[in-house]
């Protein structure tokens, strides 16, 4: 060992000492700062909304970039339309609504970050948005910890009931179960399940299998493709050779384009083997191409063609603002409705306070584009009518069947004997 080598060693030791010092510093700073133990009632601050004399802020949390942007931007547009209309009519409790838009970027931790920013930094009175279940699951603890409100406008897989989320899209018994009832009525004895590989399709298919078992329907196959996958030749061939009476499709986004092209080239048609889709609305029909989808079935609570004065007004206002060729769809309608529901809740409560608004929720009604909707205070979902529609050559969907009036939300399917083992 030469001295040249030993000298830096000595210095290294000194540096190690410094590192140790920093760690000790970290420890001493951190230790006295320990807060509540787990399980103790730690009164979270409960973020306070920033409400001035003449404005109230609300957050819009949608993916404006990434894979989900194509769908979520339309929801943001519908939310802005509702806010604009409400402001033109005098606002909420005499205050103008000031929307603050944030990009969730199709990335679940970003959703959590942005929701916290909206609640804590901006002091919004409520947040509207989220699409995928994963993004909702990511923000749920943020809303619960801060005691803030989220309005979630998309059909989802149920099995959830957060006290700080209002679900204005369909739960399973308002979308999937009625679709199965319809198929059973039509005499379908066997089904093939195709879905994207994530929570909604997997949970939906669990429910479908339980239903099928109780109603004597045979499940001939179940296939999942990764989100965004466009390789469907194998699945289409399997579907073709299985020869089921119908296909239940829970694919999301782009995958539908590839799936329906392969399905058509495998020689299948809506007459020989109809496909019931629960994630294809007017916007998606436009991007997939109506020629691949003509005659296929969908299950939603709202279509652009739904009859009623409220819908005529909504479609006209939306197209006047965003363009004549823009279709309206179920999640957009649910988002639009959610802002009006929040307004009605606030006005009934006479306050923006979250606890008061929640307490005022039960029984609130709104003449929505989809028809009269009512908030169920217990589950914080809304009563909705189910509609089975058929896709036409013009890309619009027309109703072929509907449930007998609005269905009471049942996110845990407690009212269905066959669903006992599910939750």
């Amino acid at each position, binding site marked *: 060992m030469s001295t040249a080598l030993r000298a830096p060693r000595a210095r290294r030791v000194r540096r190690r000492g*410094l590192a140790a010092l920093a760690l000790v510093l970290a420890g001493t700073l951190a230790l006295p700062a320990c807060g509540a133990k787990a399980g103790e009632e730690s009164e979270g601050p409960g973020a306070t909304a920033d409400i001035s004399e003449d404005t109230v802020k609300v957050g819009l949390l949608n993916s404006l970039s990434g894979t989900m942007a194509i769908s979520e931007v339309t929801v943001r547009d519908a939310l802005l339309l509702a806010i604009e209309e409400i402001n033109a009519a005098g606002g909420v409790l005499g205050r103008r609504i000031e929307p603050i838009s944030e990009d969730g970027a199709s990335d679940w931790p970003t959703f959590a970050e942005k929701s916290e920013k909206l609640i804590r930094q901006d002091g919004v009175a409520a947040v509207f948005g989220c699409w995928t279940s994963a993004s909702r699951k990511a923000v749920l603890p943020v809303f619960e910890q801060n005691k803030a409100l989220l309005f979630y406008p998309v059909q989802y897989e149920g099995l959830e009931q957060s006290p700080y989320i209002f679900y204005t899209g369909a739960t399973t018994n308002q979308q999937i179960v009625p679709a199965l009832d319809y198929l059973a009525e039509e005499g379908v004895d066997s089904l093939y399940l195709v879905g994207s590989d*994530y929570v909604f399709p997997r949970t939906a298919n669990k429910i479908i299998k339980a239903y099928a078992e109780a109603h004597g329907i045979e499940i001939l196959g179940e296939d999942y493709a990764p989100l965004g996958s466009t390789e469907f030749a194998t699945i289409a061939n399997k579907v073709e050779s299985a020869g089921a009476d119908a296909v239940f499709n829970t694919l999301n986004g782009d995958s539908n384009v590839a799936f329906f092209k392969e399905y058509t080239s495998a020689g299948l048609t809506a007459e020989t083997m109809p496909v019931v889709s629960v994630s294809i609305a007017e916007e998606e029909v436009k991007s997939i191409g109506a020629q691949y989808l003509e005659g296929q079935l969908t299950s939603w609570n709202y279509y652009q063609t739904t009859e009623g004065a409220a819908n005529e007004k909504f479609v006209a206002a939306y197209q006047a603002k965003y363009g004549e060729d823009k279709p309206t769809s179920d999640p957009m309608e649910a988002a639009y409705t959610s802002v009006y529901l929040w307004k009605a809740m606030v006005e009934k409560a006479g306050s923006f306070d979250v606890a008061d608004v929640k307490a005022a929720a039960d029984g609130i009604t709104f003449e929505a584009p989809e028809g009269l909707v009512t908030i169920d205070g217990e589950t914080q979902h809304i009563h909705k009518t189910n509609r089975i529609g058929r896709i036409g050559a013009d890309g619009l969907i027309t109703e072929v069947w509907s449930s007998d009036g609005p269905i009471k939300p049942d996110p845990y399917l407690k009212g269905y004997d066959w669903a006992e083992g599910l939750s």
Partner: protein
Amino acid sequence: MTATTRPDAATAAGPAATSPRRARWRAPLGFALGALLLFAVAPAVLSDFRLSLLAKYLCFAIVAIGISLAWGRGGMLTLGQGLFFGLGGYAMAMHLKLADAGPGQLPDFMLLYGDSDTLPWWWAPFASPAVALAGVVLLPAALAVLIGYFVFRRRVRGAYFAILSQALAFAFSLLLIGQQATTGGTNGLTNFQGFFGYSLLDPVNKRMIYFLIAGVLLGLMALTRQIFLSRYGELLVAVRDSEERVRFLGYDPTLVKLFAYVYSAVMAGMAGALFVPAVGIISPALIGVVPSIEFLIGAAIGGRASLPGAALGAIAVAWAQTTLSEEFPAGWTYFQALLFIVVVAFLPGGLASLGRLLPRRPRLRSRRAPGADPEPEPDPREAPARSGPATAAASSSTTTAKEAGA
């Protein structure tokens, strides 16, 4: 920078020395400044929300430090760090989920999506905090040893190594998505209530987690700096620049590279474990191809071969992402891309090389006039080079290959 002929140019831990005496103080001073900023200034000026975001950025900085050793110094393009980030994150998250559920109970998501009433066998050990903490370090380490040993022994390098890393990260995220009943699928694991007995709902405890992460980051930076300066650090750079020559000199490059790879994997694993209580989620979206690339971008922008450069780069990129997306929710991705393109095009050595580029000429002159300093102390980076023929040979070979090595 390839034009320089200084023997220490290749290692260049920080901006190269102005004078040895000042260089001696720069690292401790920088370190003390970092500690001051992290422990005193940041908590004082940032709101709770911003502080928790900073905690998240610091986790990315920990990953970047590992990348700086494996990629910046070792020349291994670790394009799959998400894999190890995920292993550490899931190990921690599984423990927190089990602790929340209580003994003998199933985590909440398993009650919803699960098929059976019993805990899967591979979940059970994570109920113990000791096993979980050990798992955070040992799982990434074990997997990295396994991958690294076979890959480096077969002399897989360059693009093949990068593609392999990325494929593994992708496969791991697919595996997790497919096992919804036991891993939460795309949702991942979220909604943690407690962290080793402390409630995560309490803002005081969230602050504590920030301090913990900042302490770990500083500690690991100090440790990594020692590795940079050690004989091993020299050898690693030598392997990066000329693996065959090092092999010819009697060293086994497999082991040299393996250590750096495993070290960076453990760093990513620890970052993942700290990310979980700080952000409150771990999901396949955090461990696939895109996040793995994002881990690299931070290190590349800051300067992959420089320890503070990589760490600050990771923090800056994450911070810019937050700020830009808040200001321009619809168009921020363009800014991010622009930033990356500008740095890659004009500063291939990252922002850390900025200081070295500008005042290069005067420094070279002072360096070539040893008389300027009456008692020149040996620069620690040069010392090993003088001590043995092996590293001396390696060092001289590094001078021109610095850019090519990465």
